[in-house]
């Protein structure tokens, strides 16, 4: 049996519960319910196994990881296993006191998401009153010596505010700013027609980010992710299937990426039954698209196959119905017309409707014609 180089990062989706309802959420539509979540001891064992496997970074995400009452214990255990621990959060559920506990437990890095620069728009996109708390939380974060990233998901409903958003986030004194265009999986794919920007909007956004990078050099590190629908070639999704990362979902299933659960016929092994090391080396799901044997043409003979690994398997399945197809984002893909059609059809500008201060179910009903808010596990 071939030995594969070890993974560098573990993405731990510790819960799918979330108080926000972001329309661009890339979580699967089928979410894991609370009673199926792994217990504290299971996670601590998984962190130890990950470190032994050579993993350096742990990304605690969800859902909203703060929904787990044992988060302090999980971070403490991760730190004890010598993992670099990053909390990816909306901040909802984080008081000043609990933040201090997380830092004391060994948290290295916190990544706080923002939906827009304007409170009403941000709350509209999140389907929750969250924006004001995030601004307050940012101040508390800077009271600690941990790395602070602000994260902004960009799409058609906020892209016109990008310059203003960067200014608002800059004022929070982050070390790092992640400007990521929505990726069309899960809820975001369902809402694509409301989220995909036009080419003109994208070009403007790229120029805005370039100017900010120049201005903030040496002060804030900016990492930006271009929407692949507008790129010529696909992204090297997860650095290649089963090459650098593994993801454990709330129920303990181990996946090569966030979305792999959508691919039919895949069997994911569970940390309740196997060690991470065994899964990394042997799991059918990890073997499936490793290397080049699975590649169709034009990937198989393409000079870029070592750079982008044929793109994203999940996107290939979601858009073409065949997980082994060339990612249709690629301009060389036989089915690239699917992307061209989507960009043409979906990318029509409209304006955000007036939103009243309303309970979630009212907002949900009111917006049903535009998008579906992410809802929690059953």
């Amino acid at each position: 049996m071939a030995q594969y180089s070890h993974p560098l990062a573990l993405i731990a989706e510790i819960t799918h519960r979330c108080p926000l309802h972001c329309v661009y959420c890339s979580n699967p539509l089928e979410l894991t319910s609370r009673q199926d979540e792994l217990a504290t001891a299971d996670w601590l064992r998984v962190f130890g196994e990950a470190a032994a496997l050579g993993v350096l970074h742990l990304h605690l995400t969800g859902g909203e990881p703060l929904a787990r009452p044992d988060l302090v214990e999980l971070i403490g255990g991760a730190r004890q296993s010598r993992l670099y621990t990053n909390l990816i959060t909306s901040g909802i559920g984080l008081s000043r006191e609990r933040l201090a506990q997380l830092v004391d437990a060994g948290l290295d890095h916190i990544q706080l998401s923002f939906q827009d620069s304007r409170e009403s728009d941000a709350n509209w996109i999140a389907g929750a009153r969250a924006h004001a708390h995030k601004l307050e939380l940012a101040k508390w974060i800077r009271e600690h010596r941990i790395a602070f990233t602000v994260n902004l998901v960009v799409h058609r409903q906020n892209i016109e505010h990008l310059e203003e958003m960067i200014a608002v986030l800059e004022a929070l004194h982050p070390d790092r700013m992640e400007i990521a265009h929505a990726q069309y999986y899960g809820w975001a794919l369902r809402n694509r027609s409301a989220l995909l920007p036009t080419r003109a909007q994208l070009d403007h956004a790229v120029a805005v980010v370039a100017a900010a990078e120049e201005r903030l050099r040496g002060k804030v590190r900016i990492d930006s992710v271009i929407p692949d629908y507008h790129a010529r070639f696909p992204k090297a999704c997860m650095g290649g299937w089963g090459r650098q990362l593994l993801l454990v979902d709330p129920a303990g299933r181990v996946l090569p990426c966030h979305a792999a659960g959508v691919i039919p016929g895949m069997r994911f092994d569970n940390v309740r039954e196997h060690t991470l090391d065994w899964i990394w080396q042997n799991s059918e799901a990890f073997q499936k698209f490793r290397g080049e044997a699975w590649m169709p043409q034009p990937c198989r003979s393409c000079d870029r196959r070592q750079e982008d690994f044929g793109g994203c398997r999940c996107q290939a399945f979601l858009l073409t119905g065949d997980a082994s197809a060339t990612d249709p984002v690629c301009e060389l893909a036989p089915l690239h017309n699917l992307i061209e059609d989507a960009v043409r059809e979906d990318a029509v500008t409209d304006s955000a409707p007036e939103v009243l201060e309303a309970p979630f179910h009212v907002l949900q009903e009111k917006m049903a014609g535009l998008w579906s808010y992410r809802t929690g596990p059953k």
Partner: protein
Amino acid sequence: MTRGIVAELVDTSVPKFAAGCRWGGTSEAPVVLFPEGAIRVEGTGRIILELCDGHFSLAEIVQKLAAQFILAPKGKIRADVLTFLEQLHAKRIIDY
């Protein structure tokens, strides 16, 4: 912590790891960990970074290296240390 101005590295500067950056890996194969990344450091790089613990100024770090590498001209050592630390500063790994 200086914010808003790209700090200049001078002899009295005290280089140290930025918030959220630290050592990791094993003692045989140490790495510097930072948000979303890690770098393996060996040889002189490792010696320099081990001196970036907040106790030594740039001049002191250069002095210590000059004592260790007696054949290298001190001016060159200083220039190399400066370039190395400035690169890590641009990546937000080292503050001074």
